């Protein structure tokens, strides 16, 4: 999903040139999940940040260069781990599917 822009979260007001953005959407089937929690874990698996998803299931992190793991928790679903690579000046778009 890296590099995908279609349907992505608006980047208005974000200085993309200076940030290593990781963002995306949590879905159950085709439905956005608005009450999920996405955790950003560093390369050693250590917690770095967490955000609740928006009404449209979206989330965003300002990470650093390198490899990260997104751990997504949603009601009545098993946690989902998704690997992602972030780089300053780019936006890593991620779609997370949780179990139905």
């Amino acid at each position: 999903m890296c590099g995908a822009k279609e349907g992505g979260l608006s980047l208005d007001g974000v200085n993309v040139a200076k940030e290593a953005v990781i963002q995306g959407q949590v879905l159950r089937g085709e439905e956005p999940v608005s009450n999920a929690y996405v955790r950003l874990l560093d390369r050693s698996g250590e917690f770095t940040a967490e955000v609740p998803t928006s009404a449209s299931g979206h989330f965003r992190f300002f990470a650093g260069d390198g490899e990260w793991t997104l751990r997504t928790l949603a009601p009545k679903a098993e946690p989902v781990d998704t690997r992602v690579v972030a780089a300053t000046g780019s936006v890593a778009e991620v779609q997370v599917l949780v179990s139905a």
Partner: protein
Amino acid sequence: MSRENSLVTAQWVEDNLDTDGIVLIEVDEDTTAYDKGHIRGAIKLDWTTDLQDQVRRDFVDRAQFEALLSERGVSNDDTVVLYGGNNNWFAAYAYWYFKLYGHQDVKLLDGGRKKWELDSRELTDELPSRAATTYTAQEQDSSIRAFRDETVAAIGVKNLVDVRSPDEYAGRLLAPAHLPQEQAQRAGHVPTSINVPWSKAANDDGTFKSDEELREIYGAAGLDDSKETIALCRIGERSSHTWFVLKELLGHQSVKNYDGSWTEYGSLVGVPVALGDEPGEA
């Protein structure tokens, strides 16, 4: 203090939603979270406006805190149960703040808003109404709040526990990764501070780990509980979470929260700063 005195479960809260003398208060980093839905009967405190002086960088003073709680309908003998998002960061901050002003009976909802939501428990947008009270606060308890000079003097002497993420501690990030990274202060950490990220103390669902697990984590990290401890992070909210663990759950005698934290320390002229993953020398 102990776990039984300072922590309640989501089920306990659900069972006590209509119990007199218990006031639920939501405090979130995202100050709009309450407005989108909250636990029935809960009132909101906005940490940016209700709990901070609006001119200087400091807390509201005793008289302002009294006026705030009186207006919101909180009494001195109420059991205050705090909860919030972000694994209770700001709820723990408010807990510490209530203790600072001498409120006797304060508790945290274990796991906070996240645990409540992941359990699929009910949220409402109905606003409660509480009759005004006459709340009396105490003078700030200086035994639980550290300032910058004390933090500088603690280098190589007291336990300094930096609870930010490893990348912030090492100087690779300047803020938690859900916030933009452009900041004015220098990156790094206070020399000799150990890095025990607040998140080590919490399970994925936001609840606190067991006392046994917590003792093991801080012991393995080299925290000497015979010494005084100062906890710090970026603005003092995550370190409130660790202050809660060390003081309230594990019962360490002398634990202070340095609310100036890295946004203050990293902007001071002339103080020592360590970079990288190691604590560094005094």
